[in-house]
């Protein structure tokens, strides 16, 4: 058992090692080992093997490679191009024009992708060329893609939710269901930003796009079938009770493969590229997860979560105050840390506290995902900012950052709404799962 000061020292040491460029997983594991060696002794150090095996032999986490594979197949199969063009026909007549398509396409791609960074790279590549010579303010174009793409982890499926579910024993099906309403709400808020800007500063939003004939628009709807079909398969099989969330991911992979094969876009070499990318991304994520499982094991034995819970109880903070403090904590941490490291690294300490305060674990999962979304677009370390800038290949990243600011404000608004009206997240899982 150690006190909060030692724990805070350990946390500072962990951040310090990370900033010196050591691998995030190694730092988490080393801090765990060091804590065990200094306070408990060798049996806990030697138990690392048993804990590593039980952390990686995990059926829930198997959904991570399956969703990565799904995304790889869809992108390499060219489904995303057609999806974007189809949406453009329907959304660009709105005030703000093609900008709405960025948000809509991000939300739709989010319904099949488990990752925001993948969403940003995919939508960015498809969208940015469409804006050439159309007179839109580049900041707004870039901001809408960078921010819109963060929906990738809020609208199910979501790798972050899978990992959260696996680490905290929370139902992934419920988490998925809880992400839908906040995801749609955030999509609407983003579109509201675009409408507002185009009304307030018409010069920024480009000309309103003319509407294509209905026949053309209807034919384009075909492009929406692959993502909507796969989303229906994933959520439908879970909701109908046919499949667990992991099993639904496996079904989605098979369906995507069949769709791609039917369009004659499948080849063995493309499949092998998908496999290599999948195994690489999964290993990168899982190494952090298994290291964090071990860190969490040591932290639990040292009684740090209990000490933190006692401290919070002593200063008399209730659930709302605690959540507001955590909001600020994650907002700051998110500026400097990559999202998975931030989420996985803090769950061992924060989650037990959340439980003692009587906060719903499903709700807290959604809160954490929104914190990760914020972290993706806050400088200096905001992966989506750099991905969009990288796809664009001109100008400065500062323009991307400026462009995300109004969207960032909407995410802060959503967080406040979530904290005060928890039913925004909890209503749908309650009516679908009881």
């Amino acid at each position, binding site marked *: 058992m150690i006190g909060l000061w030692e724990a805070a020292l350990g946390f500072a040491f962990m951040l310090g090692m990370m900033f010196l*460029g050591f691998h995030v997983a*190694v730092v988490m594991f080393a801090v765990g080992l060091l804590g065990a060696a200094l306070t408990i002794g060798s049996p806990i150090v030697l138990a690392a093997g048993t804990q590593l095996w039980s952390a*990686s032999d995990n*059926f829930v986490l198997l959904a991570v490679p399956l969703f990565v594979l799904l995304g790889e197949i869809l992108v390499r199969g060219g489904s995303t191009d057609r999806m974007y063009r189809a949406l453009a026909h329907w959304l660009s007549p709105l005030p703000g024009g093609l900008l709405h398509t960025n948000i809509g396409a991000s939300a739709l791609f989010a319904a099949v992708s488990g990752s925001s960074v993948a969403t940003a790279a995919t939508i960015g590549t498809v969208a940015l060329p469409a804006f050439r010579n159309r007179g839109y303010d580049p900041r707004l174009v870039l901001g809408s893609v960078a921010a819109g793409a963060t929906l990738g982890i809020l609208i199910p499926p979501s790798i972050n939710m899978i990992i959260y579910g696996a680490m905290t024993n929370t139902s992934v099906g419920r988490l998925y269901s809880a992400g839908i309403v906040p995801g749609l709400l955030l999509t609407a808020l983003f579109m509201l930003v675009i409408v507002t800007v185009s009304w307030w500063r018409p010069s920024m939003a480009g000309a309103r796009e003319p509407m294509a004939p209905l026949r053309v628009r209807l034919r384009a709807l075909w492009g929406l079938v692959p993502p909507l079909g796969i989303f229906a398969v994933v959520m439908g099989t879970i909701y109908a009770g046919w499949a667990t969330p992991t099993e639904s991911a496996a079904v989605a992979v098979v369906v995507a493969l069949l769709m791609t094969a039917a369009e004659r876009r499948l080849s063995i070499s493309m499949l092998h590229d998908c496999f*290599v990318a999948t195994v690489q991304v999964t290993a990168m994520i899982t190494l*952090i997860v298994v290291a964090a499982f071990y860190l969490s094991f040591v932290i639990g034995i040292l009684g740090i979560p209990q000490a933190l819970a006692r401290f919070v109880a002593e200063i008399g903070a209730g659930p709302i105050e605690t959540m507001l403090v955590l909001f600020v904590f994650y907002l700051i941490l998110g500026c400097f840390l990559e999202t998975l490291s931030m989420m996985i690294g803090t769950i061992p300490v924060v989650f037990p506290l959340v439980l003692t305060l009587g906060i719903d674990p499903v709700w807290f999962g959604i809160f954490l995902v929104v914190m990760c979304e914020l972290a993706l677009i806050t400088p200096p370390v905001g992966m989506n900012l750099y991905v969009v800038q990288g796809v664009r290949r001109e100008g400065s990243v500062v323009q991307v950052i400026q462009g995300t600011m109004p969207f960032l404000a909407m995410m802060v608004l959503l967080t406040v709404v979530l904290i005060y009206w928890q039913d925004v997240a909890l209503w749908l899982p309650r009516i679908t799962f009881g």
Partner: protein
Amino acid sequence: MDSSPLHTLLNPVCRFAAILCGWGLLGLSVLTCVEIVGRKFFGFSLNGIDEIGGYALAISTAFGFALALVRRAHTRVDLLLVSLPARAQAVLNALAALVLAAFALFMAERGYAVLSESVEFRSVSNSPLQVPMWLPQGLWLAGLVLFAAVAAALAVDAVRRLLRGEMRSMNALYGPPTVLEEIKEELGTELPDLSRRAAQ
């Protein structure tokens, strides 16, 4: 991606292992569809797909650790690092490679301890499948050993380059990847003239 003789040697080995794991994941997905349809409509169950799925994850991530290492995909925070002078960066990159190698060796050694206990107890999974534990754990350990070997080889190479003062090549090979390199990974394809700009 920047390359060295060592990377050129290790990359295809790790890639081959990853492709095998990929086929395994795909096979498992197909079996899962069979299981769902069978369970729902024909009253039969393959029994234990979830158990095999757990093993599949453990094994494919263990092999993936090495692949991700060769391709510099393991997460690092480069915020401070990239603003340091080349010499300091090189020292930190070599240190990171060394510590990672120590970690990978420790994991492999502990993985071996887990396997040898399973062999000693002749442990059998406590499910209707009754899988002898040495089987999945043996494959898992093989992946961890590959990771340890690759990490050790890269650490030795990194230190050697550092001692020879090859700072630039050292940082290009062992530093965190640049954003452009990461996007290329993410999209799976080379963007036109992306690599040329990265070199500028």
